[in-house]
């Protein structure tokens, strides 16, 4: 057999040992000759194939790879070896690599492993001693951390303690051990491992024990070790590792004299980002403060940050040390009092109170500077702290809170929000290229108007070419799917655009048209092929009237938009030009009433057909601010005629009576819901007859209860499932059924009495697409979106399963409302109340900010919010802490008006809550007491008092209830 035949034979028969012996006597030239056969075998054995019915894998066996790996390293170049064999094998097996390097036949391997290796500490040191490469400090540290435990999974115990490994190389203890304090390693895990190996009799934390032993043997300097432990606190190590080093220091049990020597490092540790360490150091200072060498000034240099810390215990401990220091040295009184002011930045009542008592005890009442400094904190002080500091705070500062917060008046129609009209074809080209990106909610409408306005100019050849980017984007959206910004409405817009281009614009024999039609054909074939492959896929390159969303989208909110697209498509096909009524005039979705009236006058003059959905949307988007409606009203009286005049008069005049119209019924109903005139509801039979009209005005039927349900549990003894009964907290919302055949757009008839509200159906869950459509959904009725609020409560806010998408929806809806506030009705109140308990902090903060704005504008019913909260908290549906934390952080002390609103909310909630107090009721009562003290309210309603009496039986509440009742 020649060499080539031998290799083939060894591989075929899997003779690993023979193959290993085979390479020894060969020269470099002989080895080089074997390259082709090694490559061929590697390629063949690496072929991926079906091994049996359910398994796929490579052709070769692991033994065969071992043979090729062994011979390959001698024969192949580095590049080929990396391509065909396992180079990482040598990156991990040091001694195998060393064996090959020593033969002197593989020149590249040494260079390779010098840069790429995962060796143990002892292997690294061997490589260093052999002169192969110089290990980095960081890898020495990382590997050293693992070197005092040996693992053998076949032995008992599996892990053995091997401190002798540290003594093999002298520099391990003299130098490398200190690297452990410089670089982040897993040294803390090594100590933890003693818990996992029960059979191991060695019960000490291995590294801590090792350090102790090394100190006792005089091999390392104890003080240096203690210092290094403390210095790690500021080296950006993770919390657990930093804590481990601090524990190591404590494990060594330093005495007071040593701590005194360690003072600079202890002060340094006060800057640690980890509260465990700061708390630990302060604990030591509580013992050291009396020592004659304690550096009081150095400590005071560091207290500003400690006192304003967000960790309560840090601030409290610092103040406790202040107490001790002032008792030790009366001369420090003034400086400590001045320093303690920093504690008033804390939002913790206990911290403030402790600081207040300290100042009251040691502060000088005649010190005007101190009083001035204190006045800066006056509005942030808790009443109790303020009372303690009464001598230091003037009466003027006592009422530092402003009467109300200022919010700018709501202006929907302003010059700065006016949407720029499309002046020329270039404007349309740029708009078209970004229309499907959902950059602005009004781009949808603007594109439609632009295509109507410039339909003739677009037919010029040079302009057709310019639409290429827009066409590509539309294709991409439809065929490749949404991006993080696009919604369902963008897809139907893209479909409309492709249909327009394919059926109307690019139908001639020009170069641009031929290129497009070719692409369309290709995409269409692909689209049809997808549809054939999957029953879940609905083709996207279809006629607009045949459009269907993918199966998960069960909503119907897109239908008014789809109808308008069909309407515009028909106009474009017929070559007609018409100004759409519903195109917003002001960002993000408003129509200036004057603009709407002017459009209607033009319609009357030119005898245009009014498309009912277009008119409905236009009415819904009409700004109802009095400043906007007044000039429009005058123009209506002057220029409009007939039923349109009656319709617009009713819309724009607050006091106008509900008219009877024959032609514009839909728009009239839309106008009624815009006005949110709940009082007139019963008096207007036409409205009352509309199914679920009440829900459009915020009515919501819901209950919160504990529900018993049947389920099964696995019984381990019986080894089978057994039926059990469990309880769960449940929010049940009787959702308005809006189907009525509307889901199928083909059933929609133009004479149906439908308003935009009728289409607000969503699927069971919200997806990204729905979230991205939210601004445009609100644009269907920006004056009254109660129906959406109720849907959001039932889909997102009501339940407590907040995922990323729900959080984004929460943020989005409040972002829209912050800019375009609405006076909430019942559903709106419910959404706000639920959001105040939201798990995501951002949603909670948004809700609180929106609440604040509504309070300032007198647009919210605090009692109703309180009643809703009580309904949920009766069974502790949400953790009450979320709400009390929010009050503390964001809702209290905004202004006197806000405090009153909060007080009313809590006062309305308390009597309706469960007689058995829930968790955190104490915190709620503390806030209630604080608000009462701030408002100087002495009266206590009978209902509240009765509930307090009920709660008195709870030991933890006794004290606070007594405070409330005696205030």
């Amino acid at each position: 057999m020649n060499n080539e035949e031998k290799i083939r034979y060894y591989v075929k028969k899997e003779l690993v040992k023979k193959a290993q012996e085979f390479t020894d006597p060969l020269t470099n030239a002989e080895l080089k000759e074997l390259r082709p056969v090694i490559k061929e075998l590697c390629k063949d054995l690496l072929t991926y194939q079906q091994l049996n019915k359910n398994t796929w894998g490579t052709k070769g066996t692991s033994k065969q790879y071992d043979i090729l790996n062994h011979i390959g390293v001698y024969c192949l170049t580095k590049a080929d070896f990396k391509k065909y064999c396992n180079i990482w094998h040598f990156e991990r097996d040091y001694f195998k690599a060393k064996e090959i390097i020593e033969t002197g036949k593989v020149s590249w391997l040494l260079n390779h492993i010098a840069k790429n290796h995962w060796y143990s500490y002892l292997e690294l040191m061997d490589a260093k001693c052999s002169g192969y490469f110089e290990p980095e400090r960081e890898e020495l540290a990382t590997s050293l951390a693992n070197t005092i435990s040996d693992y053998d999974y076949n032995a008992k115990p599996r892990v053995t303690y091997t401190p002798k490994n540290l003594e093999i190389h002298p520099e391990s203890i003299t130098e490398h051990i200190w690297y452990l304090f410089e670089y982040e390693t897993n040294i803390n895990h090594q100590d933890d491992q003693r818990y996992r190996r029960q059979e191991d009799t060695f019960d000490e934390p291995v590294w801590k024990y090792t350090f102790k032993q090394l100190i006792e043997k005089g091999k390392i300097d104890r003080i240096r070790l203690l210092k290094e432990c403390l210095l790690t606190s500021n080296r950006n190590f993770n919390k657990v590792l930093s804590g481990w080093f601090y524990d190591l220091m404590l494990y060594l049990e330093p005495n007071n004299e040593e701590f005194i020597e360690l003072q600079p490092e202890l002060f340094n540790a006060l800057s640690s980002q980890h509260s465990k360490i700061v708390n630990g150091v302060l604990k030591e200072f509580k013992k050291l403060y009396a020592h004659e060498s304690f550096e009081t000034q150095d400590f005071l240099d560091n207290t500003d940050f400690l006192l304003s810390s967000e960790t309560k215990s840090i601030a409290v401990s610092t103040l406790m040390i202040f107490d001790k220091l002032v008792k030790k040295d009366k001369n420090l009184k003034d400086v400590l009092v001045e320093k303690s002011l920093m504690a008033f930045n804390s939002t913790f009542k206990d911290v403030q109170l402790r600081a207040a008592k300290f100042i009251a005890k040691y502060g000088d009442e005649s010190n005007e500077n101190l009083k001035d400094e204190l006045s800066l904190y006056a509005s942030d002080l808790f009443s109790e702290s303020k009372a303690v500091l009464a001598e230091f705070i003037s009466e003027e500062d006592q009422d530092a809170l402003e009467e109300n917060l200022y919010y700018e008046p709501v202006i929907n129609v302003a010059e700065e929000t006016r949407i720029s009209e499309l002046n020329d074809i270039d404007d349309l080209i740029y708009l078209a290229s970004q229309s499907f990106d959902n950059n602005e909610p009004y781009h949808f409408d603007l594109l439609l108007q632009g295509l109507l306005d410039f339909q003739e100019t677009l037919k010029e050849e040079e302009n057709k070419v310019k639409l290429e980017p827009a066409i590509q984007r539309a294709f991409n959206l439809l065929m490749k799917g949404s991006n993080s910004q696009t919604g369902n409405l963008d897809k139907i817009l893209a479909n409309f655009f492709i249909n327009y281009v394919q059926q109307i614009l690019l139908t001639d024999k020009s170069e641009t048209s031929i290129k497009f039609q070719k692409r369309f054909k290709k995409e269409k074939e692909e689209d049809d092929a997808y549809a054939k492959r999957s029953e879940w896929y609905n083709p996207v390159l279809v006629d607009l009237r045949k459009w269907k969303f993918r199966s998960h989208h069960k909503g119907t909110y897109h239908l008014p938009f789809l109808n308008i697209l069909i309407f515009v498509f028909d106009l474009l096909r017929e070559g007609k030009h018409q100004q759409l009524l519903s195109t917003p005039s002001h960002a993000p979705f408003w129509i200036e009433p004057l603009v709407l009236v002017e459009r209607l006058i033009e319609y009357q003059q030119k005898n245009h057909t009014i498309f009912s959905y277009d008119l409905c949307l236009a009415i819904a988007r009409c700004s109802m601010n009095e400043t906007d409606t007044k000039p429009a009203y005058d123009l209506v009286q002057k220029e409009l005629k007939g039923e349109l005049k009656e319709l617009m008069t009713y819309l724009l005049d607050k006091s106008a009576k509900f008219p009877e119209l024959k032609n514009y019924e839909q728009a009239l109903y839309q106008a009624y819901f815009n006005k949110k005139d709940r009082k007139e509801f019963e008096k207007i039979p036409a409205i009352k007859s509309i199914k679920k009209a009440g829900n459009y005005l915020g009515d919501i039927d819901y209950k919160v209860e504990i529900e018993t349900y049947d389920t099964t549990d696995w019984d381990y003894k019986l080894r089978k499932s057994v039926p059990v009964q469990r309880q769960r907290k449940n929010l049940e919302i009787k959702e308005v059924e809006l189907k009525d055949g509307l889901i199928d757009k083909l059933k929609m008839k133009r004479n149906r009495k439908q308003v935009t509200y009728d289409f607000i159906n969503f699927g069971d869950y919200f997806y990204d697409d729905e979230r991205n459509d939210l601004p445009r959904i609100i644009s269907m009725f920006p004056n009254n979106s109660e129906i959406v609020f109720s849907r959001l409560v039932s889909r997102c806010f009501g339940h407590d399963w907040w995922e990323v998408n729900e959080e984004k929806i929460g943020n989005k809806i409040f972002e829209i409302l912050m800019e375009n506030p609405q006076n909430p009705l019942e559903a709106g109140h419910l959404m706000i109340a639920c959001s105040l308990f939201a798990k995501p902090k951002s949603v909670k903060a948004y809700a609180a900010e929106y609440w604040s704005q509504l309070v300032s504008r007198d647009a919210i019913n605090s009692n109703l919010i309180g009643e809703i909260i009580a309904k949920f908290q009766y069974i502790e549906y949400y953790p009450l802490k979320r709400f009390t934390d929010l009050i503390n952080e964001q809702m209290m002390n905004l202004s006197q008006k806000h405090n009153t609103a909060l007080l009313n909310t809590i006062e309305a909630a308390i009597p309706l809550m469960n007689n058995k107090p829930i968790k955190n009721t104490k915190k709620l009562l503390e806030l209630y007491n604080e608000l009462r003290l701030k408002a100087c309210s002495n009266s206590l309603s009978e209902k509240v008092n009765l509930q307090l009496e009920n709660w008195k039986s709870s030991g933890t509440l006794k004290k606070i209830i007594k405070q409330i009742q005696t205030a």
Partner: protein
Amino acid sequence: MSDLTYRYALASAIEKNKDADSVFLSKFSEIQKENAPCFFWGKLNQPFITAKCLITLSAVVQSSFNLSTPILRDPIVTTGNEMIRFEGFSHCAGVYAKVDILPNGHDGEMLATDTTNVDFNPPMIAALGSFNKRSKVTLSVGKESVGVHYEGKNVIEKKVPLPEKWIKGLTSVQIYFADTELRHEFNTIQAIQLFRSIPKGKPKTDFYLIKRGNKALFSPVKTKNAICIGGIQRLRLIEQLVPLCDKMIVFAHPDMQSTTWQLYFGDIRFCLSISRENWRGFSGEGAALEALIEDIPDTLISNYDKLAYANHTFNPTLLAVETGLDLNKVNNLSAQLSAIGLLGYDLDDNAFFYRRLPFGLSRIMNLNPRLKGVEKLLENNKVQIISQEDGKVGARVEGSGVHHTVLLEGDKARCTCTWFSRHKGERGFCKHILATKKLIS
């Protein structure tokens, strides 16, 4: 992205003497201006604050807010005009920090004016942490090293490779500074209270600096005139400095592409600037691109060193006169020079200052893929000017499978590409606009 690797002629070495340790560190710079062994030697007037600021700077340079693993990186130091400035970037290049020691912040001698890279290693940071308000500290800034001499001990740093993204970031951030506006000024208490409202953890959403009544706070709620801050947890880097400052000034870019938080401590200033989002570094921003597409005359670059004195305010007219340039031909000279690393920006003076980064121009140009894209478009004749009248330029630029339309009108520019649609020029212009601009310039 590959790192810039220093190649040292000799290995660094430490010589220990009885009185003081002396350290020799090998040097490497792409641009060598002076060979002074030491730039500054002198006493620090506010050692405690200086130390705290430098520790914070070290925390910035060893932080990372994207998925990359943080590595302790080098700040750079500029001495001159009686000032010492330390600058550095986080590993992710999304956080920029600068410490300015103003003329009264030290009592020492400027031996040379230049910029160098220095490393802050763990022992050095530990030594800084042990200073107090009564410490007597001498700082020496050498050509190759920074050493802090403290009570007889000597702790010296060593250098490590500097990532290329630093260079990009250092150029972009100066241009952002030039556009930023002063938005808020807070006293110590207000600043502490503001920082207390930083949410815990790592919020994924943007936060906004809003004013409610007389109070400022961070809120996830977007309100009118609010300053938008992405990756707000990055502000925690300066949390410990805030209680020590006299005042804090907040600057913001008009398009909210960056926010800058400047703390004042007598004669020391600490400046922290954070990019628009956690995952976006200043290095990836296109602010410098527009400036880089115009060719800068070679005479200007060659004469720059003769006229530039580190930390002195930059005077474009003087430079143009001295180098015989027509000022009208170089409209945005400041932006151009800062884009190639020759200028820094001082927010208080509202002016650029001379500071030459020790990296070559070709390196900076090579770091911008969008500029490479521009060159490629022009090389392959893919830009076609279709109209040019009344200051309005229309062009057709070949993109991937489509022709984009570019329209330049005065300072405004529009393109039909996805990049433009998404960012509206806030992150620098797209390659199609840049190529058109370059073609007509």
